[in-house]
């Protein structure tokens, strides 16, 4: 009997042991040291920006019987922009609204790049009960506000860059006098309307005087982006002398002062629909990556699910900053985010954090028309292919690490095939003796 009891106890112990082991296997916990995975600090490289600080116009125009007048002072533009953002736009089918039928001045704000309706409705209030607007595939980059011929209503027309597609609206909650007042207060210059390839631009009719801007800079370290760009930062390993980091699925690399991140392995198509512009700004805000002032500078949509690329360009003062060097250096003043299935598939951007200290060396830039003429007559740039033309700063990639300053030189820039080129260098190349270089196409 003792043996039986012993046997029963043994069996019971065995069963208990196996239950414990099974439990251990099923709810496996290693005996590694404890660590708190939530201990990583919230990433904040620089700061966040409100959407209207990024999606903003960079030109205000008044069209009256004397022609086009405008200016690009950010402060002034912001005032007008704020006023308009407080208004409510209601889509109108009244096509009698039209330009030139009356002599009332038309006030226009021009964005540097076309916006989706989704993005637009983030900055302007649309009375859009029937959601017809949000379904619209229109890309808008300018809005024109004017009083109706009878003076009772305020109307607004949203234009596509080529001013062919229009969206007619009536405006509520807008005091036209306030608007007029803002325009009267500013110092407007004559502007010249030019039709480029796919876009109508307004260029200064006179010379523009600008200063080269000197700026100290600071290079962000690549490592700061690891927790932002990788889902599992602990599993990220450097290679190529810490200029490249990869978790074998994603890769982040630094070329000069440009960070390039790619996540080629996104396969799922289940991501929620999101406008790439808004999504990008929110993502940037989320991690506070806005190191300097940036302005929305374009989108390319791949499909209606929200796959696409949004671009933001650095601004200095009232002008955008460009880099026209070889390929990855473009992103010295640029941030570009590509989205695929709601996931970030590409991030290219600058690692520079500028700290402008002041201008020096006044430079006079020719009027837009002259520039176009010079380009067509002195260079073999195909002027008809120019998609955009604007004044900005050229920011060269800092080559020496010892000098922590960088200078931004004013210049005209033109855009062909989605790439910006410096007019000065085009003219210099053309003028340059034995220049065998072709103008890039």
């Amino acid at each position, binding site marked *: *009997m003792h043996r*039986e009891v012993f*046997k029963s106890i043994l*069996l019971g112990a*065995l069963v208990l042991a196996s239950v414990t082991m099974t439990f251990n296997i099923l709810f496996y916990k290693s005996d590694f040291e404890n660590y708190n995975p939530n201990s990583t600090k919230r990433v904040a490289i620089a700061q966040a920006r409100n959407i209207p600080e990024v999606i903003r116009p960079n030109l205000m125009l008044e069209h009256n019987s004397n022609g086009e007048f405008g200016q690009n002072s950010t402060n002034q533009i912001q005032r007008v922009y704020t006023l308009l953002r407080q208004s409510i736009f209601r889509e109108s089918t009244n096509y009698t609204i039209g330009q030139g039928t009356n002599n009332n001045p038309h006030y226009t704000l021009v964005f540097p790049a076309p916006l989706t309706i989704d993005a637009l409705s983030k900055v302007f209030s649309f009375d859009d009960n029937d959601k017809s607007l949000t379904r619209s595939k229109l890309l808008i980059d300018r809005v024109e506000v004017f009083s109706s011929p009878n003076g009772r209503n305020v109307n607004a027309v949203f234009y596509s860059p080529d001013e062919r597609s229009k969206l007619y609206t009536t405006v509520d909650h807008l005091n036209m006098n306030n608007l007029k007042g803002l325009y009267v207060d500013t110092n407007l210059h004559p502007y010249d309307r030019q039709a480029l390839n796919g876009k109508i631009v307004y260029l200064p009719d006179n010379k523009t005087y600008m200063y080269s801007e000197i700026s100290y800079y600071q290079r962000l370290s690549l490592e700061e982006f690891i927790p932002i760009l990788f889902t599992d930062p602990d599993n990220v390993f450097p*290679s*190529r002398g810490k200029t490249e980091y*990869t978790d*074998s*699925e*994603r*890769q982040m*690399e630094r*070329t000069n002062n440009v960070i*390039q991140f*790619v996540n*080629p*392995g996104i396969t799922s198509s289940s991501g929620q629909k999101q406008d790439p512009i808004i999504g990008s700004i929110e993502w940037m805000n989320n991690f506070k990556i806005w190191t300097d002032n940036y302005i929305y500078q374009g989108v390319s949509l791949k499909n209606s699910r929200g796959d696409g690329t949004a671009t933001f360009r650095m601004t200095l003062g009232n002008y955008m900053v460009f880099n026209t060097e*070889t*390929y*990855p250096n473009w992103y010295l003043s640029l941030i570009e985010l590509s989205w695929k299935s709601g996931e970030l598939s590409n991030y290219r951007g600058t690692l520079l954090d500028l700290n402008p200290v002041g201008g020096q060396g006044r430079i006079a830039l020719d009027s837009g028309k002259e520039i176009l003429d010079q380009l067509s007559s002195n260079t073999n740039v195909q002027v008809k292919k120019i998609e955009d033309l604007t004044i900005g700063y050229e920011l060269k990639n800092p080559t020496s690490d010892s000098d922590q300053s960088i200078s931004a030189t004013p210049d005209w820039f033109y855009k062909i095939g989605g790439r910006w080129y410096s007019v000065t260098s085009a003219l210099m190349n053309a003028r340059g003796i034995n220049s065998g270089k072709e103008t890039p196409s």
Partner: protein
Amino acid sequence: MNKVGFFKSIQFKMVLIYTLLILLAMQLIGVYFSDRVKTITLDSFEKSLESQSQLISWNVGEAIREARDTNVDDPNHVTDQIQNQLMELDNNIREVEVIDENTVIVAADEKHEDVVGKRTTNRLIIQNLSSNVTNKYRRTDHKSGERVDIVTTPIKVDNQHYGILYVEKSFESVYAQLQQINQILASATIFALLVTAVLGFFLARTITRPLVQMQRQVLAVSQGNFTRKVQMTEPDEIGQLATSFNNMTMKLREANATTESERRKLKSVLTYMTDGVIATDRKGNVILMNNRAEQLLGVYRHDVTGNSILDLLKIRKEHKIMDLYELTDSIVLDFSTDDETILLRANFSVVKKDNGITNGLIAVIHDVTEQEQVDMERREFVANVSHELRTPLTTMKSYLEALQDGAVEDAALATKFLGVTQRETERMIRLVNDLLQLSRLDSRDYKIHLERTEYVEFCQSIMDRFEMSKKQNIEFVRYFPRGSFYVNVDRDKLTQVIDNILSNAIKYSPEGGTITFRITRRGRNIRTMISDQGVGIPKENLPKIFNRFYRVDRARSRKLGGTGLGLAIAKEMIEAQGGEIWAESDWNRGTTIHFVLPLDRRDN
């Protein structure tokens, strides 16, 4: 019964079953597990290779883009840039090639640099050259037998299709890892099997131990030992079986004890019964006989067991075995020898099985010698009586007929004849009286009036009476002891006995003979001897003279008027009074009749 070999034991079988089941379970788990692990591992391997090659392809694309942008004129620069991207890849990658849209290998890893600039003929590359998606293939290198994972990824330069990246990575490390997992699984299986086998070995004993006990008990029971008991371990089926088994053993023991006692009873009955019993098998061969049968038949059972009963009973000539089966009457067997008469009676009964088939014979033998003799005596007695009665009646009849025929007229003759008739009648009366007396003695309903008698005096008076009435020339001699000896006797009857003995002595004594009457004390008894000097009695007839109607010489005795009943009555009477009587005789010298009577030892 031998001990069951280990490999035939239930214990082993259970262990075997346990381990086989565990093996099966582990196999199923193993198959499922390793298949899943294989799928998952290969998939993840492939996935990682895919992302790796996507990264490479992106890098290649970027490199081309950068190279083109910086140094448009120098195609070698592009190749170098691409080549750069293919360096420092992990070792398991067997081959990396960048192929442009014209199937020209633009770049390859260090080991395959010799193919750069050549056209590829790889079918996988050609068929995927313009593909826009990543494609995966699992192939076996037919040369080395190595299993490889092949991924082709499109290379895009600024969203323009450039060519494809061909990456070939060996699966062998994964398979080695899988092999390792399988080995772990196998060793776990073996460990589990061992543990199960050991545990099973001990656990199976829980079941087999009561069985072994029971088996031992069965063995013991079969050898007649009922004292063992199976230990009731647990109240499960085996425990119940053990309990039932113990009950059964108990019942068996009881039944066995009953049987045994019955058998003993039967044996003692057989042994001590006065009848002989012989049992045979179906063919009539003796299988059993009791002592009495041995005794009666004068054989030893060892000698005759197995012999036919026909020979044993010496009836082979008269009967066959089949007859015995149908025999309903008993048969009498004569086993008489020269010395003695032995008559046996045999009864046969048939032993039948439950199903009615005859299984043998039982012969029951009794000794009927005595019975037959009594019968003979009775017949003789009746014949004697009839004879004794007929003789006087015949005589009387002839005399009476003679009287009827006219002799009555002759007075003298008539008187003589009537006298004879009267004498014969008296003789008959005396005969009948004797018979009556004998029958009364036989039936023992007579009454003996015992009286305390002084024996010598009693005998003197009888002798005196005889001497006074004696007609012949015979001398009576008395040897009487002095003193008085008291006996408790029925005087009339003792008188009758002594009368008879004396009259016999007188009857058979010659003229001038002497009859001696002697009384002596012998311890507690008193002995009487009456001797004559007559013809005597032949020695062989001596014991018979006390038989009824026995007469040594019938003719002479008749003439002397004897019926042969006198001594028989005397014997009965003496024995009835607690005495003993016997005769001694020498032929032609004389006869002595002795009888002994117990003394009454009360002192006056």
